[in-house]
Protein backbone atom coordinates (compact mmCIF):
# COMPACT_ATOMS: atom_id res chain seq x y z
CA UNK A 1 0.00 0.00 0.00
CA UNK A 2 1.37 3.38 -1.00
CA UNK A 3 0.56 6.53 0.85
CA UNK A 4 0.66 10.04 -0.58
CA UNK A 5 1.66 12.73 1.94
CA UNK A 6 1.45 16.43 1.12
CA UNK A 7 3.56 18.92 3.07
CA UNK A 8 1.69 22.20 2.86
CA UNK A 9 1.18 25.51 4.69
CA UNK A 10 -0.42 28.35 2.79
CA UNK A 11 2.13 30.88 4.00
CA UNK A 12 5.56 30.87 2.38
CA UNK A 13 8.90 30.27 4.02
CA UNK A 14 7.61 28.42 7.07
CA UNK A 15 9.63 25.22 6.57
CA UNK A 16 7.81 22.96 4.08
CA UNK A 17 10.87 22.02 2.05
CA UNK A 18 12.99 21.50 5.18
CA UNK A 19 10.22 19.24 6.51
CA UNK A 20 9.65 17.34 3.26
CA UNK A 21 13.36 16.53 3.00
CA UNK A 22 13.71 15.40 6.61
CA UNK A 23 10.49 13.37 6.73
CA UNK A 24 11.35 11.66 3.43
CA UNK A 25 14.85 10.81 4.70
CA UNK A 26 13.50 9.60 8.03
CA UNK A 27 10.95 7.28 6.39
CA UNK A 28 13.55 5.93 3.96
CA UNK A 29 16.05 5.29 6.76
CA UNK A 30 13.43 3.08 8.36
CA UNK A 31 13.48 0.92 5.26
CA UNK A 32 10.54 2.44 3.40
CA UNK A 33 10.75 3.15 -0.34
CA UNK A 34 10.20 6.88 -0.60
CA UNK A 35 9.89 9.37 -3.46
CA UNK A 36 9.90 13.07 -2.62
CA UNK A 37 8.41 15.37 -5.28
CA UNK A 38 8.97 19.10 -5.68
CA UNK A 39 5.74 20.83 -6.82
CA UNK A 40 7.22 24.32 -6.70
CA UNK A 41 7.30 24.97 -10.46
CA UNK A 42 9.66 27.83 -11.27
CA UNK A 43 11.26 27.87 -7.82
CA UNK A 44 13.01 24.54 -7.48
CA UNK A 45 14.52 24.21 -3.99
CA UNK A 46 14.14 20.67 -2.77
CA UNK A 47 17.11 19.51 -4.88
CA UNK A 48 19.34 21.96 -2.99
CA UNK A 49 18.08 20.93 0.44
CA UNK A 50 18.57 17.28 -0.57
CA UNK A 51 22.02 18.04 -2.00
CA UNK A 52 21.36 16.60 -5.47
CA UNK A 53 21.11 19.82 -7.50
CA UNK A 54 23.96 18.92 -9.85
CA UNK A 55 22.38 15.61 -10.72
CA UNK A 56 19.11 17.03 -12.03
CA UNK A 57 18.82 16.14 -15.71
CA UNK A 58 15.08 15.78 -16.14
CA UNK A 59 12.29 17.22 -14.01
CA UNK A 60 8.61 16.75 -13.14
CA UNK A 61 7.35 18.63 -16.21
CA UNK A 62 9.66 16.65 -18.53
CA UNK A 63 8.06 13.45 -17.24
CA UNK A 64 4.54 14.80 -17.72
CA UNK A 65 5.33 15.97 -21.25
CA UNK A 66 6.86 12.62 -22.14
CA UNK A 67 10.36 14.05 -22.74
CA UNK A 68 11.75 11.24 -20.60
CA UNK A 69 10.60 8.29 -18.51
CA UNK A 70 9.88 8.60 -14.81
CA UNK A 71 12.85 6.31 -14.09
CA UNK A 72 15.18 8.68 -15.94
CA UNK A 73 13.95 11.66 -13.93
CA UNK A 74 14.04 10.12 -10.44
CA UNK A 75 17.31 10.96 -8.70
CA UNK A 76 18.52 8.22 -6.39
CA UNK A 77 19.82 9.55 -3.09
CA UNK A 78 23.51 8.85 -2.48
CA UNK A 79 23.08 8.28 1.27
CA UNK A 80 19.93 6.19 1.50
CA UNK A 81 19.23 3.46 -1.05
CA UNK A 82 15.46 3.57 -0.95
CA UNK A 83 15.09 7.35 -1.37
CA UNK A 84 14.40 9.16 -4.67
CA UNK A 85 13.90 12.83 -5.58
CA UNK A 86 11.87 14.28 -8.45
CA UNK A 87 12.94 17.88 -9.07
CA UNK A 88 10.57 20.71 -9.98
CA UNK A 89 10.80 22.32 -13.35
CA UNK A 90 12.39 25.76 -13.62
CA UNK A 91 9.94 26.76 -16.35
CA UNK A 92 8.12 30.04 -15.88
CA UNK A 93 4.92 28.41 -17.13
CA UNK A 94 2.90 27.73 -13.99
CA UNK A 95 0.39 25.76 -16.07
CA UNK A 96 3.02 23.18 -16.96
CA UNK A 97 1.75 20.75 -14.31
CA UNK A 98 -1.65 19.33 -15.16
CA UNK A 99 -3.90 17.31 -12.88
CA UNK A 100 -3.93 14.37 -15.28
CA UNK A 101 -0.16 14.55 -15.67
CA UNK A 102 0.34 14.51 -11.91
CA UNK A 103 -2.09 11.63 -11.60
CA UNK A 104 -0.10 9.58 -14.14
CA UNK A 105 3.18 10.19 -12.31
CA UNK A 106 1.66 9.25 -8.94
CA UNK A 107 0.02 6.12 -10.39
CA UNK A 108 3.34 5.04 -11.84
CA UNK A 109 5.11 5.53 -8.51
CA UNK A 110 2.42 3.52 -6.78
CA UNK A 111 2.62 0.74 -9.39
CA UNK A 112 6.38 0.76 -8.91
CA UNK A 113 5.89 -0.13 -5.24
CA UNK A 114 6.83 3.08 -3.45
CA UNK A 115 5.61 3.03 0.16
CA UNK A 116 5.50 6.80 0.58
CA UNK A 117 5.23 9.65 -1.89
CA UNK A 118 6.00 12.97 -0.21
CA UNK A 119 4.74 16.06 -2.06
CA UNK A 120 6.52 19.33 -1.22
CA UNK A 121 3.89 22.00 -1.89
CA UNK A 122 4.62 25.54 -3.03
CA UNK A 123 3.33 28.40 -0.88
CA UNK A 124 -0.02 30.00 -1.57
CA UNK A 125 -3.38 28.53 -2.55
CA UNK A 126 -2.92 28.65 -6.32
CA UNK A 127 -2.61 25.83 -8.83
CA UNK A 128 0.68 24.34 -7.61
CA UNK A 129 -0.49 24.09 -4.01
CA UNK A 130 -3.81 22.72 -5.19
CA UNK A 131 -2.17 19.98 -7.30
CA UNK A 132 0.23 19.04 -4.51
CA UNK A 133 -2.68 18.32 -2.14
CA UNK A 134 -5.24 16.99 -4.64
CA UNK A 135 -4.35 13.29 -4.48
CA UNK A 136 -3.12 13.22 -0.86
CA UNK A 137 -4.02 10.60 1.73
CA UNK A 138 -2.43 12.62 4.52
CA UNK A 139 -1.39 16.23 4.96
CA UNK A 140 1.36 17.59 7.14
CA UNK A 141 0.39 21.22 7.73
CA UNK A 142 3.54 23.15 8.57
CA UNK A 143 2.93 26.10 10.87
CA UNK A 144 5.06 28.70 12.63
CA UNK A 145 3.74 29.99 15.98
CA UNK A 146 2.79 33.30 14.46
CA UNK A 147 -0.62 34.79 13.57
CA UNK A 148 -0.41 34.91 9.76
CA UNK A 149 0.96 31.38 9.52
CA UNK A 150 -1.80 29.97 11.74
CA UNK A 151 -4.54 31.78 9.85
CA UNK A 152 -3.21 30.64 6.45
CA UNK A 153 -2.96 27.07 7.62
CA UNK A 154 -6.61 27.17 8.66
CA UNK A 155 -7.47 28.14 5.09
CA UNK A 156 -5.41 25.18 3.89
CA UNK A 157 -7.42 22.92 6.22
CA UNK A 158 -10.56 24.25 4.54
CA UNK A 159 -9.15 23.36 1.11
CA UNK A 160 -8.07 19.89 2.25
CA UNK A 161 -11.64 19.27 3.34
CA UNK A 162 -13.20 20.42 0.07
CA UNK A 163 -10.77 20.63 -2.85
CA UNK A 164 -9.11 17.20 -2.82
CA UNK A 165 -9.99 14.05 -4.68
CA UNK A 166 -11.01 12.39 -1.42
CA UNK A 167 -13.38 15.26 -0.64
CA UNK A 168 -14.81 15.42 -4.14
CA UNK A 169 -15.45 11.68 -4.26
CA UNK A 170 -16.88 11.64 -0.75
CA UNK A 171 -14.21 9.20 0.46
CA UNK A 172 -12.75 9.25 3.97
CA UNK A 173 -11.11 12.66 4.48
CA UNK A 174 -7.41 13.46 4.12
CA UNK A 175 -5.74 12.82 7.50
CA UNK A 176 -4.49 16.15 8.83
CA UNK A 177 -1.42 16.56 11.01
CA UNK A 178 -0.02 19.72 12.56
CA UNK A 179 3.74 20.22 12.46
CA UNK A 180 4.75 23.28 14.42
CA UNK A 181 8.23 24.48 13.56
CA UNK A 182 10.69 27.27 14.43
CA UNK A 183 9.42 26.84 17.98
CA UNK A 184 11.29 28.76 20.63
CA UNK A 185 10.64 27.30 24.12
CA UNK A 186 12.30 30.31 25.73
CA UNK A 187 9.95 32.76 24.01
CA UNK A 188 6.95 30.56 24.74
CA UNK A 189 8.06 30.50 28.38
CA UNK A 190 8.18 34.28 28.56
CA UNK A 191 4.76 34.63 26.92
CA UNK A 192 6.11 36.17 23.72
CA UNK A 193 5.21 33.23 21.49
CA UNK A 194 2.11 31.06 21.23
CA UNK A 195 2.55 27.60 22.66
CA UNK A 196 1.88 24.31 20.92
CA UNK A 197 -1.32 23.99 22.96
CA UNK A 198 -2.48 27.44 21.84
CA UNK A 199 -1.99 26.60 18.16
CA UNK A 200 -3.50 23.15 18.55
CA UNK A 201 -6.56 24.62 20.23
CA UNK A 202 -7.12 27.15 17.44
CA UNK A 203 -6.66 24.71 14.56
CA UNK A 204 -8.18 21.70 16.26
CA UNK A 205 -5.94 19.06 14.67
CA UNK A 206 -3.57 16.53 16.15
CA UNK A 207 0.14 17.37 16.52
CA UNK A 208 2.64 15.21 14.63
CA UNK A 209 5.69 17.17 15.72
CA UNK A 210 7.18 20.30 17.24
CA UNK A 211 10.51 21.30 15.72
CA UNK A 212 12.60 23.81 17.68
CA UNK A 213 14.13 26.88 16.08
CA UNK A 214 17.65 25.70 15.37
CA UNK A 215 20.80 27.02 13.69
CA UNK A 216 21.40 23.46 12.47
CA UNK A 217 18.68 23.92 9.83
CA UNK A 218 20.74 26.57 8.04
CA UNK A 219 23.95 24.57 8.22
CA UNK A 220 22.06 21.54 6.92
CA UNK A 221 20.77 23.44 3.90
CA UNK A 222 24.22 24.96 3.33
CA UNK A 223 25.63 21.46 3.13
CA UNK A 224 22.75 19.87 1.22
CA UNK A 225 22.22 17.33 4.00
CA UNK A 226 18.67 17.18 5.39
CA UNK A 227 18.79 18.24 9.04
CA UNK A 228 17.39 14.91 10.26
CA UNK A 229 20.73 13.31 9.30
CA UNK A 230 22.59 15.47 11.85
CA UNK A 231 22.01 13.20 14.82
CA UNK A 232 23.45 15.72 17.31
CA UNK A 233 20.73 18.24 16.56
CA UNK A 234 17.53 18.83 18.55
CA UNK A 235 15.75 19.56 15.27
CA UNK A 236 16.84 16.16 13.93
CA UNK A 237 15.55 14.35 17.01
CA UNK A 238 12.26 16.23 16.78
CA UNK A 239 11.88 15.26 13.11
CA UNK A 240 12.78 11.67 13.98
CA UNK A 241 9.95 11.66 16.54
CA UNK A 242 7.55 13.04 13.93
CA UNK A 243 8.48 10.21 11.56
CA UNK A 244 7.84 7.67 14.32
CA UNK A 245 4.39 9.20 14.95
CA UNK A 246 3.65 9.12 11.22
CA UNK A 247 4.34 5.39 11.34
CA UNK A 248 1.91 5.02 14.22
CA UNK A 249 4.19 5.05 17.28
CA UNK A 250 3.21 6.99 20.39
CA UNK A 251 6.11 9.26 21.28
CA UNK A 252 5.90 12.10 23.81
CA UNK A 253 6.73 15.60 22.58
CA UNK A 254 10.25 16.82 23.42
CA UNK A 255 12.06 20.16 23.38
CA UNK A 256 9.03 22.11 24.63
CA UNK A 257 10.88 23.44 27.65
CA UNK A 258 13.81 25.80 27.68
CA UNK A 259 17.02 24.00 28.54
CA UNK A 260 18.02 24.87 32.07
CA UNK A 261 21.03 27.17 32.02
CA UNK A 262 22.76 29.00 34.81
CA UNK A 263 22.34 32.72 35.38
CA UNK A 264 25.77 33.57 33.99
CA UNK A 265 25.22 31.45 30.90
CA UNK A 266 21.94 33.28 30.34
CA UNK A 267 23.51 36.71 30.72
CA UNK A 268 26.68 36.10 28.76
CA UNK A 269 25.87 33.00 26.72
CA UNK A 270 25.10 32.97 22.99
Amino acid at each position, binding site marked *: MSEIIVVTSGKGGVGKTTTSASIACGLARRGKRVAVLDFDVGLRNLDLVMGCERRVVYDFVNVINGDCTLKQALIKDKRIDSLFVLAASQTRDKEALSREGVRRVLDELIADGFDYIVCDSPAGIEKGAHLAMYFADRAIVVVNP*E*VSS*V*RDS*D*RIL*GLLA*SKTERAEKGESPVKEHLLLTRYSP*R*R*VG*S*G*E*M*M*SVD*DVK*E*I*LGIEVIGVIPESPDVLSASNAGTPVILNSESDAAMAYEDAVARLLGDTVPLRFLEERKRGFLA*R*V*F*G*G
Partner: protein
Amino acid sequence: MGLLAFFRRSPATASLAKERLRIIVAQERSTRDGPDYLPLLRRELLEVIRKYVNVDPEAIQINLEREDGHEVLELSVALPEKGAAE
Protein backbone atom coordinates in the same frame (compact mmCIF):
# COMPACT_ATOMS: atom_id res chain seq x y z
CA MET B 1 20.94 35.59 24.79
CA GLY B 2 23.32 38.49 25.41
CA LEU B 3 23.47 41.00 28.24
CA LEU B 4 21.13 43.49 26.54
CA ALA B 5 18.50 40.94 25.62
CA PHE B 6 18.51 39.64 29.16
CA PHE B 7 17.45 42.96 30.60
CA ARG B 8 15.21 44.07 27.73
CA ARG B 9 12.21 41.79 28.14
CA SER B 10 9.81 41.65 25.22
CA PRO B 11 6.16 42.09 26.15
CA ALA B 12 4.06 38.96 26.57
CA THR B 13 1.91 39.25 23.44
CA ALA B 14 1.22 35.56 22.85
CA SER B 15 -2.18 35.69 24.54
CA LEU B 16 -3.12 38.63 22.33
CA ALA B 17 -2.16 36.63 19.25
CA LYS B 18 -4.23 33.69 20.41
CA GLU B 19 -7.30 35.79 21.13
CA ARG B 20 -7.15 37.54 17.74
CA LEU B 21 -6.73 34.22 15.96
CA ARG B 22 -9.58 32.64 17.87
CA ILE B 23 -11.96 35.32 16.58
CA ILE B 24 -10.78 35.55 12.98
CA VAL B 25 -10.50 31.80 12.49
CA ALA B 26 -14.00 31.24 13.88
CA GLN B 27 -15.36 33.94 11.59
CA GLU B 28 -13.58 32.60 8.51
CA ARG B 29 -14.65 29.05 9.24
CA SER B 30 -18.29 29.97 9.65
CA THR B 31 -18.40 31.68 6.25
CA ARG B 32 -15.99 29.26 4.52
CA ASP B 33 -18.44 27.23 2.53
CA GLY B 34 -21.16 29.84 2.69
CA PRO B 35 -22.52 31.59 -0.38
CA ASP B 36 -20.14 33.78 -2.40
CA TYR B 37 -22.28 36.87 -1.82
CA LEU B 38 -21.43 37.07 1.89
CA PRO B 39 -18.49 39.49 1.61
CA LEU B 40 -20.51 41.80 -0.66
CA LEU B 41 -23.54 41.56 1.60
CA ARG B 42 -21.33 42.50 4.54
CA ARG B 43 -19.94 45.53 2.69
CA GLU B 44 -23.35 46.78 1.62
CA LEU B 45 -24.84 46.30 5.07
CA LEU B 46 -21.96 48.29 6.47
CA GLU B 47 -22.71 51.12 4.04
CA VAL B 48 -26.41 51.17 4.93
CA ILE B 49 -25.73 51.16 8.67
CA ARG B 50 -23.19 53.92 8.26
CA LYS B 51 -25.89 56.22 6.87
CA TYR B 52 -27.30 56.25 10.40
CA VAL B 53 -24.43 55.53 12.77
CA ASN B 54 -20.73 55.67 12.26
CA VAL B 55 -19.68 52.12 13.07
CA ASP B 56 -16.36 50.49 12.49
CA PRO B 57 -16.09 47.55 10.00
CA GLU B 58 -15.01 45.50 12.98
CA ALA B 59 -18.37 46.14 14.63
CA ILE B 60 -20.22 44.01 12.11
CA GLN B 61 -20.13 40.25 12.62
CA ILE B 62 -21.70 37.86 10.16
CA ASN B 63 -22.02 34.23 11.07
CA LEU B 64 -23.57 31.42 9.16
CA GLU B 65 -24.95 28.79 11.50
CA ARG B 66 -26.21 25.45 10.31
CA GLU B 67 -28.98 24.06 12.48
CA ASP B 68 -30.63 20.78 11.62
CA GLY B 69 -31.19 21.22 7.93
CA HIS B 70 -31.56 24.99 7.66
CA GLU B 71 -29.08 27.84 7.66
CA VAL B 72 -29.30 30.90 9.87
CA LEU B 73 -27.50 34.07 8.90
CA GLU B 74 -26.60 35.79 12.12
CA LEU B 75 -25.79 39.47 12.01
CA SER B 76 -24.63 41.50 14.94
CA VAL B 77 -23.73 45.17 14.99
CA ALA B 78 -21.99 46.70 17.96
CA LEU B 79 -23.13 50.33 18.18
CA PRO B 80 -20.63 52.91 19.35
CA GLU B 81 -21.00 54.36 22.82
CA LYS B 82 -22.96 57.60 23.01
CA GLY B 83 -20.81 60.56 22.08
CA ALA B 84 -18.01 58.40 20.71
CA ALA B 85 -19.50 58.16 17.22
CA GLU B 86 -18.31 61.45 15.84
